[in-house]
């Protein structure tokens, strides 16, 4: 306790220097924590926008087909071959509705009036493809006399909320509000092109909002898309795509090569977008983390200066402590204790500052109307907080290390006689 009081008293003696060094450590450790949180938050945001992009291979039929020579149709046999590839854990079939469809709606829309006519695209998928977002009691299958369950893209909802709703005076929506909303769509009729098939109107009910759903259209059960195609006179067998899940991102290249060797092509748009966004986030965050580390190094230099001066001005005090029985290690330990107090305080201040700055940044971003904006672009964890505190402590201890060693080597007899 006496040593702690002595250490605090020593720090108070050069309060300005101690405050400057604490602020420098706070800036360095806080910046490191802030940018680590920003990098992790942006990675999370990218992962939310493109879920499982690094574990999924999207297979499509080849654009050029000459019989079976350069690969063939995505039929059940092809799906079985794809499912059997090494590294593949799941193969989920996808089927685009191949005829025109449109929706005309003129009615109440969550408290506002909506009068809209739009072209509708649709794709059929297996329930498992949307299992993460579908309610547990939602069978996601066609039932006679009931509206067709369909999922819409969360990115589309973000676009609506961020751009469409504010500019047209429409209410902003959440995924929860949309569930159960039912509207009719007309198959076989286009608003912009001639239609060839029979025209029929079917009610569609929103069953989920998912980042895995088709971006600009409705994602419906696979058998519904097949039945709609058949009723429009389109082929009822085969698929327009297969999503292969792989156990780990490391397996992607091998699986992609195997898929190509089977004569199929890859649709890697989502993954490339995810990778580009992830790379940009990572590079930006890393650059700023390096800058923060530079600040930490500068803070370490400040600590060195402060404690070098302290050892010079406190030679006699150190000699007294040695005369009272302090070992060299205990004499240097007192300086390291003072440094640890500065480092701990600086690290803690930096953490608080980083959390405050992150809240301000999030609040500012919430006022910007850009689609897909997450609630927060930061992800702070206890590990990164502990790391930032440790960096603050290490910066202080590292800066004080050489002066402390110098203090340990002071000749007590000489310091006492020199004064």
């Amino acid at each position, binding site marked *: 306790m*006496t040593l702690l009081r002595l250490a605090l*008293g020593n720090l108070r003696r050069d309060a300005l220097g101690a405050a400057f060094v604490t602020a420098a450590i706070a800036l360095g450790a806080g910046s490191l924590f802030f940018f680590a949180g920003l990098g992790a938050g942006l990675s999370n945001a990218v992962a939310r926008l493109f879920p499982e992009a690094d574990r999924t291979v999207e297979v499509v039929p080849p654009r050029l087909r000459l019989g079976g020579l350069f690969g063939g149709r995505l039929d059940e046999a092809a799906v079985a071959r794809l499912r059997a590839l090494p590294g593949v854990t799941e193969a989920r079939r996808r089927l685009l509705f191949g005829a025109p469809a449109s929706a005309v709606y003129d009615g109440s829309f969550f408290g506002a009036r909506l009068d809209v006519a739009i072209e509708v695209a649709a794709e059929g998928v297996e329930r498992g493809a949307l299992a993460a977002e579908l309610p547990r009691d939602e069978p996601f299958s066609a039932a006679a006399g009931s509206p067709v369950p369909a999922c819409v893209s969360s990115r589309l909802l973000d676009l609506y909320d961020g751009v469409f709703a504010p500019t047209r005076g429409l209410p902003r929506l959440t995924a929860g509000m949309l569930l159960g909303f039912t509207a009719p769509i007309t198959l076989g009729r286009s608003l912009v092109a001639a239609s060839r098939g029979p025209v029929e109107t079917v009610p569609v009910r929103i069953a989920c909002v998912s980042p895995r759903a088709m971006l600009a259209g409705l994602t419906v059960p696979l058998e519904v898309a097949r039945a709609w195609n058949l009723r429009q006179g389109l082929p009822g067998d085969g698929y327009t795509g297969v999503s292969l899940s792989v156990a780990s991102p490391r397996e992607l290249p091998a699986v992609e090569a195997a898929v190509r060797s089977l004569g199929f092509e890859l649709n890697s748009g989502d993954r490339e977008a995810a990778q580009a966004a992830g790379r940009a986030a990572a590079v930006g965050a890393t650059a700023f983390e390096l800058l923060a580390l530079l600040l930490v190094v500068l803070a370490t230099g400040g600590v060195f200066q402060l404690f070098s001066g302290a050892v010079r001005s406190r030679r006699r005090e150190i000699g007294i402590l040695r005369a009272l*029985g302090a070992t060299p290690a*205990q004499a240097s330990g007192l300086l390291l204790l003072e440094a640890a107090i500065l480092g701990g305080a600086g690290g803690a201040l930096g953490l608080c500052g980083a959390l405050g700055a992150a809240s301000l940044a999030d609040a500012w971003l919430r006022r910007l109307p850009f689609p897909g904006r997450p609630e927060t672009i930061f992800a702070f964890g206890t590990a990164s907080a502990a790391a930032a505190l440790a960096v603050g402590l290490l910066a202080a201890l590292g800066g004080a290390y050489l002066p402390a060693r110098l203090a340990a080597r002071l000749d007590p007899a000489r310091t006492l006689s020199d004064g």
Partner: protein
Amino acid sequence: MSEGAAGGTGGVEARGLVRSFRRDGRELRVLDGAELSIAPGEVVALFGESGSGKSTLLSILGGLDDGFAGSVRLSGVELSGLAEPERSRLRARTVGFVFQDHNLLPRLTVSENLLLPFAFRRGERPGPEAASEALESVGIAPLARERAARLSGGERQRAAVARALVTRPRLLLCDEPTGSLDGANGRRVAELLVSLARGRGVAVLVASHDPSLWRGADRALELSGGRLRARLAGAA
């Protein structure tokens, strides 16, 4: 009292001490075969001119200076064979220092100054009552909570004596302990030191310029030419 008993039962014994310094490129031999023995409870006054090596001798006996040749036995332990941490621990256990200008840490209270030596000892944490008792013995108990910087010169030196004795040392080394005090205060501190040390069986070596203050000492030695000589009776 035999010479061996002095070094082995709590006193100090030095044999053939040689200590040199290089100054301006020349070797200056401050101690040149000095011999000394102080038994527990014995008070020895050490006189000598400025620069004669009194402080150097005290530093060597207290384990602060290890650059000497010869032998020093402190409470039965040979100092010259000890590594620095062991010497520090032995010093903490067995030696008390009183310096000319008290050397209290001004930012700490008097009580904290007294308890400071215990901060460097393993497993020994006496409470404030130990400090109060020591301050009582030097007559400044009411000043326990005062900051050292606020004390008068005499009070500071009494506090320094209390700090040197609170750890119950076997050897008390005093370097001009009355040098910064006026005559009356110096005499009071000198009497206090001698009576406390005798009462506790502590071996005391007091280096001083002023023989008149140390008439109560058991012996007086003079350091001259690097050697110690007994001073004539009545000179101290």
